[in-house]
């Protein structure tokens, strides 16, 4: 479970998040809010990409400040733009990034990559150059690159913003079917209707938190 205790994040002397307290035991949690509200800042705290200015973030009892590596092993992160997440020129090579470990042989790594490619229906793209893929294929590769590390939690930060309708549906179906605990930041409220819990961030504070219907109503009221 991810927990935030009295978390404040300050940037350039301004509080981006203020005194956030959360316990997140649910398997599907959506995070909504206007641009600049602090929702991306909030989820960056979950895997230690960002450390709080005050307070503490715990993942299964591990502090993101003291146990960065262990926390990143538990919490995967899928970014909005897959172009900036894929670091190797070909699909197969990119999936192998992160699997490098002294105790793992080259053939073992290759087997894990092949199995992952097959699971995502990407086997035919193994030797394809990543910059030649379509937007949907790139996002699939980015997600595969995260799940291959077998994290227990995955944060999706607006993963469908750059995609067309068809690819958005495909990625959302994948997110719904994924076995890990999911934290999804999205502006598309339809995607979050069947989530267990929604959190609405407004001006760095939790504006609403609970079942989707009520949180969405309060979020819409903000802009009525």
């Amino acid at each position, binding site marked *: 479970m991810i927990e935030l205790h009295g978390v404040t994040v300050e940037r350039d002397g301004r509080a981006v998040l203020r005194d956030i307290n959360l316990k997140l035991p649910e398997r599907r949690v959506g995070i909504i809010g206007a641009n600049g509200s602090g929702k991306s800042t909030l989820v960056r705290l979950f895997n230690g990409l960002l450390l709080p200015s005050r307070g503490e973030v715990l993942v299964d009892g591990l502090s993101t400040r003291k146990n960065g590596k262990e926390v990143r092993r538990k919490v995967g992160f899928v970014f909005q733009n897959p172009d900036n997440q894929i670091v190797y020129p070909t699909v197969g090579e990119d999936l*192998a990034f992160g699997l490098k470990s002294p105790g793992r042989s080259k053939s073992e790594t290759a087997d894990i990559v092949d199995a992952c490619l097959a699971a995502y229906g990407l086997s035919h793209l193994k030797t394809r150059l990543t*910059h030649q893929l379509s937007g949907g294929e790139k996002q699939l590769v980015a997600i595969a690159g995260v799940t291959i*590390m077998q994290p227990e939690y995955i944060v999706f930060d607006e993963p469908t913003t750059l995609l067309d309708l068809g690819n958005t549906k495909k990625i959302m179906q994948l997110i719904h079917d994924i076995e890990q605990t999911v934290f999804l930041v999205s502006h598309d409220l339809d995607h979050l209707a069947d989530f267990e819990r929604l959190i609405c961030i407004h001006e760095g504070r939790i504006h609403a938190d609970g079942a989707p219907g009520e949180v969405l109503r309060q979020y819409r009221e903000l802009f009525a």
Partner: protein
Amino acid sequence: MIDTFYIAGNSFLHRLPAAAKLVFIAMLGTAVFLCRDLYYVGAALVGIIALYGVAHVPPGMMFRQLKFSLILLAIIFSVQWLVADWQTGLLIILRFAVLILAASLVTLTTRTSDMVEALERILQPLRHFGLDVAKVSLCLSLTIRFIPEVARITQQVREAQRARGLEHSILAVAMPVIIRLLRMADEIAEAIEARTVSEDTPR
């Protein structure tokens, strides 16, 4: 724009270890720059062109490797002709052609991951002098990976500025490109940080 790095195949050159190819490039580069005989350098060029046949790389692909350097080679040749003689100009551009084609051939027949691994092995002794070999190899793969992305961003910005009638303003193109590249660099660093879970993964 460079849009092809590796061509899958099973030729002798594809099967040759990446480290051997990198050592060959280093030796060839040294040899052609020490050699002042036009005929030997010309023979090296013919030899490299023959190796493209051995690797089953289509001729069109070979010419594309040189296409982007033609203007630069023409300038070098002209300047050398003016300040020295045409033989010197020819010798210099032949040297460059040999190196460009040889380096491209290695890239076309070697997977980036194999090249990175070979580089890591070659640089291993420098660890004792404080060199972070994993970081160097990650830099190499990132460079290869993001060449097309940089070209794509530049193209997008040029199109946008053309729409505003600013296609001839270097500043109007350079500033947005630099800003986007800096932002992209931040996001890539963040993504690498997020994907770094093993002690052996470079950061």
